[in-house]
């Protein structure tokens, strides 16, 4: 009867072990990509990676913390504008000025959270959207940054940008192409850093608490999880990364306007589709989602508004018939977890 039972707790799965090796190889490949890829591929990869970063942030909010924000464009926009402000007013180099975007977004997130956390459910969604509109309209009043029509990064700022010289000489490229390489590397670092950060958070004690809150708010409170504090941490962190991403995106475009930088469709709408189609509440989902999103965009590029129409239909269909997204379908079929979070008890007799 009283067999001694030893056990250990694991989150690793065999798939995740193999995936880790594959991922490491993939990362090395990704870092080396500029050595053999053309400019247009790098530009595409830049878009994919920055959308992936935004998607991971929104997924953290909506999929794990239950904060369904429709106002993430506020942080993209403010991050982008802060980067521009750093360059134009204080003469910063655009690359470090990107971090300024993260700071500005985090600062904006504080009053936003203070206000929006008083609202429940749908009110939260609408509230965040209205705040983003307020920020957009206010920024449009900022005349020295071009007001409603926007402005461009000064030519000397982009031409003397940090790291561009060494990259140019390393690969033997012109400056413009070297800037694409730089933007690509930064986007890669940001996306990988975000995924790593989200994964670390979810595996930590706080992450477990977050999942507990998502699954059962009352029970979580009963065992002493402070849901409100977790929400604050997640909201501000997601805003900061979103802001950095905004700064990076507009470093690459080098031209900004309030309507573009605060576009609800581009920075929240598409992001929501990416997360939902890929699979909300998983780290794998947004990765899969961004690939599908981009493939569709390419496939339907010649069909104008049909592209968005089909995207909308796919989004609706996934939500209705496969609410856990494509990754949910794959996971149910195969049981694969690339980023295992659930702890499993391994009992040895």
């Amino acid at each position, binding site marked *: 009867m009283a067999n001694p039972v030893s056990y250990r707790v694991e989150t690793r799965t065999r798939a995740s072990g193999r995936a880790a090796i594959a991922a490491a190889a993939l990362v090395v490949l990704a870092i080396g990509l500029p050595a053999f890829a053309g400019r247009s591929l790098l530009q595409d990869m830049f878009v994919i990676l920055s959308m992936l970063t935004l998607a991971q942030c929104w997924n953290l909010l909506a999929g794990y913390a239950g904060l369904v924000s429709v106002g993430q464009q506020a942080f993209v926009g403010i991050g982008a504008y802060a980067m521009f402000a750093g360059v134009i007013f204080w003469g910063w180099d655009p690359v470090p000025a990107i971090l300024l975007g993260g700071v500005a977004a985090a600062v904006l997130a504080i009053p936003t959270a203070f206000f929006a956390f008083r*609202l429940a459910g749908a009110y939260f969604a609408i*509230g965040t959207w209205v705040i983003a509109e307020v920020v957009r309209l206010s920024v449009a009043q900022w005349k020295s940054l071009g007001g409603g029509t926007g402005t461009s990064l000064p030519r000397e700022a982009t031409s003397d940008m940090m790291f561009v010289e060494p990259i140019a000489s390393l690969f033997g490229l012109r400056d413009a192409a070297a800037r694409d390489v730089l933007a690509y590397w930064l986007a890669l670092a940001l996306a990988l850093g975000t995924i790593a950060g989200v994964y670390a958070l979810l595996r930590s004690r706080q992450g477990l608490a977050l999942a507990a809150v998502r699954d059962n708010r009352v029970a979580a409170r009963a065992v002493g999880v402070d849901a409100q504090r977790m929400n604050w941490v997640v909201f501000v962190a997601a805003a900061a990364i979103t802001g950095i991403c905004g700064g990076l995106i507009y470093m690459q475009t080098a031209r900004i306007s309030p309507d573009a930088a605060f576009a609800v469709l581009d920075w929240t709408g598409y992001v929501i589709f990416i997360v939902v189609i890929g699979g909300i509440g998983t780290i794998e989902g947004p990765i899969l989602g961004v690939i599908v999103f981009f493939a569709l965009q390419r496939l339907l590029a010649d069909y104008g508004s049909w592209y968005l129409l089909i995207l909308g*239909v796919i989004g609706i269909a996934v939500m209705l018939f496969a609410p856990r997204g494509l990754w949910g379908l794959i996971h149910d079929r195969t049981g694969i977890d690339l980023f295992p979070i659930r702890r499993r008890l391994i009992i040895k007799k």
Partner: protein
Amino acid sequence: MIWVDTIVQGVLLGGLYALFAAGLSLVFGIMRLVNLAHGDLIVLAAYLILFVVTVLGVHPLVAVLLAAPMMFAIGWGLQRLILTRTLGDDILPPLLVTFGLSIVIQNALLEGFTADSQRIPMGAIETASVALGPVSVGLIPLLTFASAVLVIFALNQLFYRTSLGRAFRAVSDDPTTAQLMGIRPASVFATATGIAMVVVTIAALYLGVRSNFDPTIGPARLIYAFEAVIIGGLGSLWGTLAGGIIIGVAQTLGGSINPEWQILSGHIAFLVVLLIWPRGLFPRAFD
């Protein structure tokens, strides 16, 4: 005197927003459904009216009478086939599905009617104005406001004086027990959405007569509508009118100081109200 004029114009503008919001308020109040496609449905109805006007050559008011039943059917079908599946405690499915719907409608309209902006022609009445005490107001804004009051009055009568209205409230309270009364929640919800779409058609008429519209303007209208609904309090139709008026007055006041502040001041009024009353001005006692 200029202030009185500004405020009167604001109140009348509030009527337009209340009209945008009334259908939303009805649906939100009954089934807690956040319909992000509401603004696009208004635009869709505007195109429908325009289409009827152009093809049949009838007056826009007649076109509304023809478009309203079609919109009722669209709303009924939409609820029955799609929206009903999203109802539940989780707010994500309705948000995402209606967001998808919004994009589908916008782009379908772009395909069908191009991005050119349109207007519903009303003839001389468009520029007519009447003296209202010391201020002169446009006839169309006045009609808009009167229609808003009328629509909200009618919806209230329906809600509180009819057997269908009782069913709306009962299903909203407790759908399971409502079934024991012989009520089919899905069909009651479909009827409610159908009625909301009739209101949307009326709103669309004024949208199309008062200003130009194109397939993409829905979301901007939606945000005012939501503000009006939330300020008013969940399920309170007169509250929605009050909310619309608050947004409208805030916009004209802000706009009179600096035209660029018009939209901004409406949003700020919304945030201030919500900061003080997170559940709106006239929330239901229970929820």
